[in-house]
């Protein structure tokens, strides 16, 4: 049995009890560090109406108990001045198992904020390294923490950010979701785009942090009005792949990474838009040709036949084989 495998802490052996709230303390390793007021208010309302419908999970420590799962429910019950809360009492896990248990419980339910997962993931990696002497692979981490590989990759992008950006994200996350602007997704999209640019055109980014500052400022000023537009930066950087004009792509990115009102969409339009459009059309035509080759002429109905004749006329006109 692997001690860091959370499955060795058997939930079936846990006992359901009503535990006085004052005997419970929060788990210092809980990755959830943000408790948004709106969500807490909704839970308060629900508990007041219906009570705690799902027991929390705790382990015994000395005379009290420590939370494994259910800090929001525990906080709400405290706020509502209730005496006790239903809890499943489990055996005390070691620290790594403790964190992994919390990850696995939440992996099956609603997700924590990604940055809070990322920050705790760093500790998990350190604890596994301490225990096994080896850095866990992405697959091993995924197995133990119950996280998808994609989530782990996204966490790593966030962890690679300088810590001041972590603080910026945490501050943003504390706001109601509708008011969040510089979200984790924003930084992930931006980092992915910058990584692609650094690989394809390293000369365009002499200082990555300076470029970040410019892009954040443009996003705040709504010069960049959608974080998905960052994907177009990566497309510009890959101009060579679509036989686009590399020189104009380089110039567009250089201009984009300076303080001005030049937007991603404009940079895309000025550099590789035509090349991508052409490639897109070529892909569609090739796909259509492939499909048409597989058709038995006898199976064509009148409507399709007429459409093919129209296609022939247009193609002849474009290729010079017919009237222009």
């Amino acid at each position, binding site marked *: 049995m692997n001690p860091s495998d959370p499955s060795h802490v058997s939930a079936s052996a846990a006992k359901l009890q009503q535990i006085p709230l004052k005997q419970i303390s*929060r788990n210092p390793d809980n990755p959830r560090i*943000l*408790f*948004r*007021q*709106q969500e*807490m*208010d909704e839970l*308060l*309302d629900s508990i*007041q109406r219906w009570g705690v419908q799902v027991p929390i999970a705790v382990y015994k420590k000395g005379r009290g108990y420590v939370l494994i799962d259910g800090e929001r429910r525990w*906080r709400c019950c*405290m*706020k*509502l*001045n*209730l005496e006790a809360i239903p809890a499943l009492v489990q055996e005390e896990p070691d620290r790594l198992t403790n964190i992994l248990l919390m990850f696995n419980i939440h992996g099956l339910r609603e997700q924590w904020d990604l940055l809070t997962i990322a920050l705790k993931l760093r500790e998990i990696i350190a604890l596994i390294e301490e225990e096994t002497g080896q850095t866990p692979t992405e697959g091993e981490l995924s197995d133990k923490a119950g996280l998808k590989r994609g989530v782990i990759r996204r966490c790593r992008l966030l962890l690679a950010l300088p810590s001041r950006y972590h603080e910026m994200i945490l*501050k943003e996350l*504390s706001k109601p979701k509708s008011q969040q602007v510089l979200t984790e997704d924003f930084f992930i999209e931006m980092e992915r785009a910058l990584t692609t640019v650094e690989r394809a055109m390293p000369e365009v980014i002499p200082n990555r942090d300076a470029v970040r500052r410019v892009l954040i400022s443009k996003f705040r000023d709504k010069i960049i009005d959608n974080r998905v537009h960052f994907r177009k930066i990566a497309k510009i950087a890959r101009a060579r792949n679509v036989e686009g004009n590399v020189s104009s792509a380089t110039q567009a990115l250089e201009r984009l990474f300076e303080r001005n009102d030049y937007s991603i969409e404009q940079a895309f339009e000025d550099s590789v838009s035509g090349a991508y459009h052409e490639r897109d059309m070529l892909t569609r035509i090739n796909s259509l040709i492939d499909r048409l080759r597989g058709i038995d002429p006898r199976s064509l109905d009148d409507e399709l036949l007429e459409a093919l004749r129209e296609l022939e006329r247009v193609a002849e006109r474009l290729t010079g084989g017919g009237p222009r």
Partner: protein
Amino acid sequence: MSYVLLPDQLRETADRVKAFLQKEQGLRKVQIEAAIDDSINWRPTLSGATSDHHIVCVEVTSGGYTNAFDHAVIQCTTAGLPVRFYIAYSDDEMTGEHFRKTFDNARMRGVGIIEVKGKTCTIVHRAVELSLASVRRVDRPRLKQKYRQAFSDAEETFLGGDPPKGCLRVFEELETLSRKFVQKGNAEGWWNPAFKQKQIDGPWATLMMEVVKQMDSSLSKIKKDCPKFDASLITTIHGLTKQRNESGHKPKTRAALIKRDRELRTRFEHAVDVFMDFQDATSSLRL
């Protein structure tokens, strides 16, 4: 003790309010996230007792006036607890429609509002003592125009934290009206013997006692001028004259304060009802 339940981003605001309560509202000890009573399902962010046994509670929030909080306010009101509840918020947390809704809901329940702007705390709306807040509101349209302002003042004084004075304002109106009634009786020849001016201006209780004594012989004459009049009204008013001069001692414990506030609520409501009945019964006299 530090905050456990309050979100991190609100702690600075809470600390400012805590200092405000201590320095400017005279609370010696401000507790953090403590229960105010076992029967109340809420632990306010800050709470403290005043020297006259009232409890001041402040809920620091960015979420406004929520259902769960409202439930706690109703519990305090129903239990008659001498609590003044405030919602405190940082001015950059709450704006526009959100603020308006919070303000309206809070005011409706007697909850006050504290705004924190930079380092300054301001009471935007003063809280009503919840032990008094459940008092039945005066039915102003039923009052003659000339009495409405006086009764509005009485209610405001009552809810504003001085219930004995609020009651006194109502008794004063009732006393004035009943003296006018006796004076009118002199002019109409209801009384035998007629009241001397000295008696009419004398102690209210003594005067009403005399009116009660004369009621058997005077009732038929009064009824002629005032068909809706009922003799039991005079007996009731005489009963209230005892309460008129009871300024009440300052309660020495919270339990005594709760009892006093409960009695004053009943007294206020009863006095208003009697005044309205008396006003209606004597309306034909144009007093």
